[in-house]
């Protein structure tokens, strides 16, 4: 997709989205003792060695960088789960599988900072890349069916990164459709001549595309 490669078109940069994703909670196994942290986003801890604790991703990464913990990869990041997701993703043309909203960013952060904590990292990595590609392809192909009748696009369980890439394009496309539409009635303004048809058209426009 053309939009994908041009960051100017997307609403946020990938870094910004990653920043947002860093607030997601993740489980760590600390190897130090530390009192609870009372942060604005909540209280975390106390941290006891070898006992798992839930912390935001940014904290996990910071601790990991200092060698103070190991990160437990989330459940969905196992080869087994991902294989299943990938298969399901490939099987269904329209449906998107349920994955965390920030799956791209979380996996990216973990691959960067906690590669030794993920079992079968190469497998997991390639699976996630495959899933991402498959999903993207689906998004792309579904957007190809865009036409003048579309006034809104609804795609269920799309992830943050995917939405971010698609949204500006869709918004602009819809805008231009609307602009063209608004030109249209002036050219063939046939008031109340065929009320039924006009009605139909407007109805058709409002129907949300179930994706």
């Amino acid at each position, binding site marked *: 997709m053309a939009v994908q490669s041009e960051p100017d078109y997307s609403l946020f940069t990938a870094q910004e989205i990653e920043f947002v994703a860093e607030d997601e909670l993740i489980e760590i*196994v600390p*190897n*130090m*003792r530390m009192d609870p942290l009372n942060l604005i986003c909540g209280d975390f801890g106390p941290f006891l*060695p*070898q*006992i*798992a604790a839930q912390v935001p991703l940014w904290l996990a990464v910071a601790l990991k960088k200092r060698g103070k913990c190991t990160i*437990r990869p989330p459940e969905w990041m196992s080869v087994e789960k991902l294989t299943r997701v990938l298969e399901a993703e490939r099987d269904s043309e329209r449906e998107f599988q349920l994955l965390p909203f920030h799956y791209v960013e979380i996996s990216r952060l973990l691959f960067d900072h906690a590669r030794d904590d993920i079992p079968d990292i190469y497998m997991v990595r390639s699976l996630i890349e495959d899933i991402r590609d498959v999903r993207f392809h689906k998004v792309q192909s579904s957007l190809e069916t865009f036409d003048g009748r579309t006034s809104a696009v609804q795609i269920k369980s799309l992830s943050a990164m995917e939405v971010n890439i698609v949204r500006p394009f869709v918004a602009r496309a819809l805008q231009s459709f609307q602009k063209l539409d608004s030109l249209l009635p002036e050219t063939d303004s046939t008031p109340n001549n065929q009320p039924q048809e006009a009605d139909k058209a407007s109805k058709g426009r409002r129907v949300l595309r179930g994706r």
Partner: protein
Amino acid sequence: MKIRSLKLREAHKPAGVDRPSCCSVLWDQRAHHLVTASSSDPAISIHDALLPSSPPRILRHHRDGVTALAISPNSTCLASGSIDHSVKLYKFPGGDFQTNVTRFTLPIRALAFNKSGSMLAAAGDDEGLKLINTIDGSIARVLKGHKGSVTGLAFDPNGEYLASMDSMGTVIYWELHSGATLHTLKGIAPNCGSDFSVINVLSWSPDGETLAVPGLKNDVVMYDRDTAEKLFSLRGDHLQSVCYLSWSPNGKYMATSGLDRQVLIWDVDKKQDIDRQKFDERICCMSWKPIGNALAVIDTAGKYGVWESVIPSSMKSPAEGIPNSRSNNSNGLLLFDEEEEEYEEPSAAGSISDPGEDSFGESGPPCRKRLRKQSTYDELWEEDDNDKLSSPPKPKSRKECHDKKKASDNVHDGLGSIMLPARSKMQDAFQPGSTPAQPGKRRFLCYNMIGSITTIEQEGYSHIEIDFHDTGKGPRVPSMTDHFGFTMASINENGSVFANPCKGEKNLSTLMYRPFCSWASNSEWSMRFEGEEVKAVALGTGWVAAITSLNLLRIFTEGGLQKHVVSLEGPVVTASGFKDELAVVTHSSDCLSSGDQVVEFTVFNISKSTKAMQGRLPLTPGSQLMWFGFSEEGLLSSYDSKGLLKIFASQYGGSWVPLFSASKVKRSDESYWVVGLNMTNLFCVICKSPDLFPQVAPKPVLSLVNFSIPLASSDIGAETLENEFILNYTHLSQIHHKIEAAAQAGMDVSSLEDDVFNVEAAQDKCILRLIASCCNSDKLARATELVKLLSLEKSVRGAIKLVTALKLPNLAERFNSILEVRLLAEKGPKDASALNVQDSASTSITAAAVSEKKTDAIMTLTTPKLSAPLFIKKVKSQEGTRVGGSDQIDQDVNPSIPNDGATKFKDQKIALQTNVGGEIKKPGNVHELQSERPSSGFPKSTDNLEKIKNAGQAHRQPPQRPSNPFLKSAVK
């Protein structure tokens, strides 16, 4: 030849269209059950052959498809091998999971029991095939020689050979005595490559004279037993190569199934096929019914069926004239013991063999069999002398052998146990937090709340690593090479201790201590023991303890000084150290006939050289001790194999109190491996079934588990509350115990007092909720009992509000009278008792008053020990109570009330007086009687007598408490 059709029923889901799976089917020895499995289904089904319509029993223990099944000849044990690399044993026909007998690095393809059931052969895609001693689960031998994955295994019925076959069509004859290859026949069977739905199999004729192998020309070729020469072949109407074959029980007939989807029945003597059947799918496994004329078949889609009257009635039945028929009583080696942790304690558990009865009761004593049995043991011996040929056995089994040599009190003696009548054995010594040895894998010698010691054996040496959980605190300890073969270890903050059992003359039992930091350069030391063997080790502050096979407790100082040698009363089970205290568990007698262990514990105080405690260690019937140690607060705790955690509490003059029962909380597929505990939580590693212990990699993660007392399910259905209630009491009594100890030692107890207050507040909260649930289920008497247990006056008021809201005026009245009695009692115990005598209607109150009087008497004796903070505390709590009572009582059962009060006034000791003054002036619903209290609350303004009363008041509730919950639970 007529073609009959046979209806097949689905037992396992097929892997998918055009994806054949490799299924197996087996009869048990009595033909009561059929066992089926499929490589596309992790479940094993046990079908009742007599009631085919009833649903099968499903065993779901594997994580992946099951590729191989085997049943021991006496049908007491079922073995299964799977793509998940593990071989598991189950009881049969019950199907209870027994143990993971071994693990491979690649999928298993074939399993076979030998005729006596004492040996299991397992093989698959791994390089070597393993011979496993089923008695103790040790690997007797690893046979290497196949290039491809081994798909067929068959023990010679006469017990001398094992024949194995790989997917490339190579057959190897192994001699079981020596493990040597006798014959290698290359490429005599079809090469099935990597298609694992087609497996090459082979089978000995029941008399053991010929070996049948699928041939290259769509036939079955017979090979001679000793010379491995080709004898003859069965060739006929198979259009494609044979993929499975099975001898009839008497060896007269053979069933073969081909890739051409037909099954042929052969008369072996005439070398002619007598019947055939075509199927929709390829039949991948068949099994003759041991008694009768039937053949069970299963196809690649997981559908099975029983082909009745296979052999025409004009001919001899396939089960008639079974050669050297001893199918009904194989040598009677009952494979398993009832204990769950067979794997943990191999030598202890394998023991329950009751050959006594069976082998002596046999009608015809087959001397050949004896020979065979002998050979099994020979092998064990050889294997021991000859480590190079086989994989290194577990240290435990070595120990066993050594004992055998010494012919000592044959407790772990395999040979001895054959002569003994059936009964379970005394538990072997173990280290808390250790895991059993697994060949080729790292294992824990010690895992506790501080760190872990792991070891792995490689080519005669072991590599030991020491890790601290808190990497910031502990020193970095370099890994070490261990030439001794340590099997026991213990770790604390200051150092680690290691010990090994003795292995033969040259390798004496050694004890080694390594301090982590010491000012002296060479401060590690070791001791050698001649003629005795270290069985357990423990560490504390400044001392090291080792308990030996001569039942001696040897205590060394940190520097290696031999300080004490003490004789213990029995063979050691385990030992654990905490600061100055050493706890040792010993057997006090042989097992009871019910199989229960009789063990006792002794606690020594090393620094004072005293014996702090001694007594029986209770275990759940039929269980063994799994973990033993101290909680973080220093309370003795034990965990047994039935999942019950007990601590030694001061209640009832010191008794074991169960705090956690795994059966109450656990989901069926989890087991708890205890590491430690503190006042409120259990630290353990949760292991997914069937594992009973964690592996070193990936690093186990500790889980916090809340205590759950094994309570009876009560009629008010508030088990969590009741659980909390008892836990709080236990907790309170522990703190009070500590306070007493601290007061005696003249230490400051104010922080403990704060703890008491917090726990009491939590307890009141819990009681109020219990009262609510009691009222809801109309147990008013119980609610009244509960109200009396409330420690804060405000909570009582809360309870009154609560019952008023619940429209129980009767109860509210009763509560009010309780409150009055209470307030009067606070004013002066004498008045209270007088009032109680008048109020003769409620006998229970009188009883309470009597007990109050008693405790008051006791308290007057103990008051001199109590220090000033107590009074302040008391005042504080009253303050909190009162403010809460006047301001917040409208919120009825707000659980946070006591805490609010506490925190508000925690730091207001100075402002105390003014506050109180303000309080008294406050109008509203302050109780009339309450105005009496502030005056008695001030230590300064009251006389000494008042003080004592107050102290008694502050202290009165706790001593009563322990008795109350148990009264209650007894009522339940």
